[in-house]
């Protein structure tokens, strides 16, 4: 990353983050009637350089270590906080973007600003320059983490491999009648497509179609397999089983038509939506079936770059 870009990203973050995201919420306050002599303990124990003064939930001032030192010099340790505190204070609202805080720090040169909730004007936090730095670093870390994860994805594989034609093949075996395992192939394929960096819409359509087909294998047959071929233009998924086959393919494609036995319906399927769903979520679907021999379902989902061209 060059310097220029870093600045831009941080500036972007100061607009994106809210004061509420970075401020310190666990705040110490003192009452205006407290003698200055007791201030030392509060500041020292919490290792802070200033503390808001609050009476009946209302922010009335702010008192800092400088005020304390002045009192020491002038031997006024018996004075009350209310006589020495800064009364005309600048505050920020929790829902303001961080950039407002940055600007106020620049403008006034204060060490801290009390933060109020816009609704009831109550004190909800305090923000210092170090809170801003910590907040931005934390956010940058998570941005970086996302970027790393994205890079890990294998989406560049098609660019890295040198060949006239490239396709990837993934094969999954599906057990018949075992509903505990139904879904493993399609969720596996979904994860794989995600790692390949395909768009969420494509992944979702491929996952739903494969899942419906997988449920069909489990519900109606003794098992089969799912083979996905992925090339830079499309995803082709072939779903094959060894029977019993579909007697009336046209009827099977009608929404609502189902021959599902009771146990399949109890599991939430067999509503006659499976094949129509597959058809709707794919760009091409070819269903061939021979009774007693088996069913061969081929679906194609075009990848977005090529989808709009035809």
């Amino acid at each position, binding site marked *: 990353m060059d310097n220029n870009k870093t600045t831009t990203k941080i500036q972007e973050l100061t607009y994106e983050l809210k004061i509420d995201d970075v401020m310190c919420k666990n705040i110490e306050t003192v009452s205006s009637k407290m003698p200055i002599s007791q201030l030392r303990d509060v500041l020292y124990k919490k290792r802070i350089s200033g503390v808001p003064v609050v009476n009946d939930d209302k922010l009335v001032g702010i008192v800092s270590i400088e005020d304390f030192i002045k009192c020491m010099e002038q031997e006024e340790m018996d004075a009350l906080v209310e006589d020495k505190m800064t009364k005309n204070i600048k505050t920020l609202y929790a829902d303001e973007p961080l950039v407002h805080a940055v600007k106020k720090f620049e403008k006034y040169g204060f060490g801290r600003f009390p933060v109020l909730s816009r609704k009831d004007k109550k004190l909800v936090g305090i923000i210092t320059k170090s809170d801003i730095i910590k907040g931005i670093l934390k956010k940058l870390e998570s941005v970086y983490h996302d970027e790393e994860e994205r890079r890990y994805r294998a989406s560049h594989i098609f660019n890295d491999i040198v060949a006239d034609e490239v396709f990837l093949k993934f094969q999954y075996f599906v057990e018949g009648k075992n509903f505990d395992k139904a879904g493993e192939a*399609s969720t596996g394929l979904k994860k794989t497509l995600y790692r390949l960096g395909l768009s969420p819409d494509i992944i979702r359509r491929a*996952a739903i179609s494969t899942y419906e087909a997988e449920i069909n294998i489990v519900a109606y047959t003794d098992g089969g397999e799912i083979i996905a071929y992925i090339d830079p233009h499309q995803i082709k998924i072939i779903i094959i089983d060894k029977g019993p086959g579909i007697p009336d393919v046209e009827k099977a494609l009608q929404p609502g038509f189902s021959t599902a036995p009771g146990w399949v319906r109890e*599991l939430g399927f067999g509503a006659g*939506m499976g094949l129509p769903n597959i058809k709707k979520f794919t760009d091409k679907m070819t269903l061939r079936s021979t009774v007693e021999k088996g069913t061969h379902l081929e679906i194609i989902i075009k990848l977005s770059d090529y989808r709009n061209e035809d």
Partner: protein
Amino acid sequence: MKLMEIEEILEAEVLTGEYDPEIEIEIGCSSDLMSEVLAYGEPCSILLTGLTNIQVINTANVADIKLVCFVMGKIPDEKIINLAKKNDITVFITKLTTFESCGRLYKNGLKSCSYFDLDK
């Protein structure tokens, strides 16, 4: 709508431990028929269902559903919870009926997902 709001509105119990408070739930759907859920044209963020088997989680996973809420106090078994955790799906249970759960969420501004018209 944040998960925490939904937890309150449905008086729900969380079965998958801590959840990401930043997740935004925008669209809801409700059905006991998983194929119906799969037929919706857009990713719903919450599924309310009375069906408690492992295919509910598989359905949620392939359809990009982030939150599954089982209604009428039905408690899913541990296998279901574990699969949900593995796939970053949050699971709630509520004692409310499907009708009341949907009604409360809808009243609070949660939108219904649109149906992917099969005849289109």
